[in-house]
């Protein structure tokens, strides 16, 4: 081994060493540069960059945009595998009911320097803060409010409060969402809760049925009323017209009658007699003679011959 070869090897090693001062930050990442452990560039944006060679400067790259997921309460994978941690998901509500909850937190890196150097276990800190704020919100609401109307409000309140809390811890994390994935009554009382839901449905159903009854009865009554009114109007019309007709006819006939009342009176009389006398039994007696009424009895009771 001669002196030249030795120098070349040294030069090559030196070159390689100097190469460690060049680094590339990919588009989805940010980097942080430390010199002997001290932060010199807290936020290096994507691109090609230079630093002092290793081990003086060190580069840590972080996927800052990437959302990280954290489950508070019953673990998702446990649920899938059929194992449950009942205690981990139980919370006490303001009206001292127990409910099970599962909350999913999504967060990203806000401040890389804080994220990397200020907390031993960032996920644990975020989880603890979210859980504490969640427990606090739940402990002042009734179980009905939590199960129905207040879910969105709780999510937003927890997100804001937990963000404030972890800012105090300087974890450098931005919470993007706190999402209540599941909120269920405990299995021991689940059927009673279901019964409340069905009672609500039952109640709505019978109210609907009553409404349906009303919607059926009232229009029918209106129809009947209209019918009665129309019938009455028709009756009035008929009576009036009949009267007018009868009156007109009478007036006409009366005018003719007046012209020769004796003849017309007799004619009308005789016409009527013609109509009625054929139908009836007739006994003709002399006005001077006495009438033996037994003939009437005989005539009317022929089946009684005593």
């Amino acid at each position, binding site marked *: 081994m001669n002196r030249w070869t030795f120098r070349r090897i040294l030069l090559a090693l030196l070159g390689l060493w100097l190469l460690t001062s060049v680094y590339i930050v990919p588009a989805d990442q940010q980097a942080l540069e430390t*010199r*002997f*452990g*001290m932060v010199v560039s807290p936020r290096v944006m994507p691109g090609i960059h230079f630093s002092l060679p290793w081990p003086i400067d060190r580069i840590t790259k972080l996927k800052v945009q990437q959302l990280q997921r954290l489950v508070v309460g019953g673990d998702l994978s446990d649920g899938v595998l059929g194992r449950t941690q009942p*205690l981990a998901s139980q*919370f*006490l*509500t303001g009206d*001292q009911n*127990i409910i099970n909850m599962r909350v999913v937190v999504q967060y990203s890196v806000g401040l890389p320097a804080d994220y990397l*150097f*200020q*907390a031993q276990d960032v996920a644990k800190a975020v989880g*603890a803060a979210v859980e504490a704020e969640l427990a606090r919100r739940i402990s*002042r609401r009734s179980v*009905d409010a939590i199960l129905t109307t207040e879910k969105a409000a709780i999510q937003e309140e927890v997100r804001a409060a937990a963000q404030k809390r972890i800012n*105090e*811890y300087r*974890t450098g994390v931005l919470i993007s969402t706190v999402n209540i994935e599941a909120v269920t*009554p*405990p299995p*021991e*009382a689940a059927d*009673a809760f279901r*019964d*409340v839901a*069905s*009672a609500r449905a039952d*109640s*709505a159903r019978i109210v609907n*049925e*009553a409404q349906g009854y*009303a919607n059926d*009865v*009232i229009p*029918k*009554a209106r129809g009947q*009323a209209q019918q*009665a*009114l129309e019938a*009455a109007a028709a009756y*009035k019309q*008929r*009576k009036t017209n009949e*009267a007018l007709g009868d*009156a007109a006819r*009478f007036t006409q*006939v009366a005018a003719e009658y007046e012209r020769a*009342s004796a003849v017309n*009176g007799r004619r*009308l009389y005789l016409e*009527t007699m013609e109509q009625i006398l054929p*139908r*009836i039994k*007739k*006994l003709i*007696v*002399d*006005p001077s003679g006495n009438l033996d009424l037994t003939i009437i009895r005989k005539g*009317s009771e022929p089946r009684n011959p005593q």
Partner: protein
Amino acid sequence: MKLTTTHYRAAAAVALLIFLWLTFFAVRETEFVLVTQFGKPVRTIAQAGLHLKWFFQTANYFDRRLRIYNPRPSEFLSRDKKNLVIESYVAWKIQDPKRFVETVGDPVAAEMRLHDIVWSGLAAVLGTHDLDSMVSTSPEKIQAQQVLDDLTASTDRAALTQYGIQVIDVRIKRLNLPEQNKQSVYARMRAERERIARQYRAEGEEQALRIRADADRQKEEILSVAYKEAEKTKGEGDAESTRIYSQAYSRNPRFYKLLRTLEAYKKIFDDKTTAILSSDSELLKIMMRGESGVQ
């Protein structure tokens, strides 16, 4: 082997490297360094970067980052004698490495001390507060935040002076009831739900009955109003026809009497009627007497 100049130079270089190695040391952002001299702490370095010490001194590294400690869930008794299982967490970090190493030494021991402080703090707090002040639907009763802020402050004071530990936060992660109390809670929850379900059903029934009764009332009202109107209209018709008849008939009452009487005869007499007619009557006079009967 004979020592040459080259050998001396190499040895000097190695000695220098070792000297530099013992003299310079880097402190990272995540650490405190406590420099000790033969075991005796001489100074604390909190500033990250490159630092110097004598080669006979030792650099001791301490993680200065925030830690989350979860004490085991413990059962506490509130002032109104109710059991409550509290799961808390403590956010803490080493603040004074010198004091820390002198009093507790390592994080596990530190967390045991924190456990004692927090446990006794929580026990004292709950002993003077009702369950209502931790769990309630009326927000004005709840004092949990104030209580925990106070507990954090007192824990921090105690831990800092005694162990060189900064306590950033003591919070309750979970409030729960002891297992043996849960069955009765479930029973109460069920009873409460049953009550609510009954209430819903009864309220639905009430509303339905009200709607039905209202519908029936409306129906009666509509029909009776219609009856009233209809009868009125019919009466008008009757009155009108009566007026028309009387107007027409009163112009010729004699003829009306004749006509109407003859009409009535037609209806009055049927085949069951027996008429005894006088041969002297107007109708039969002619039959009996011939033409002389005309007059």
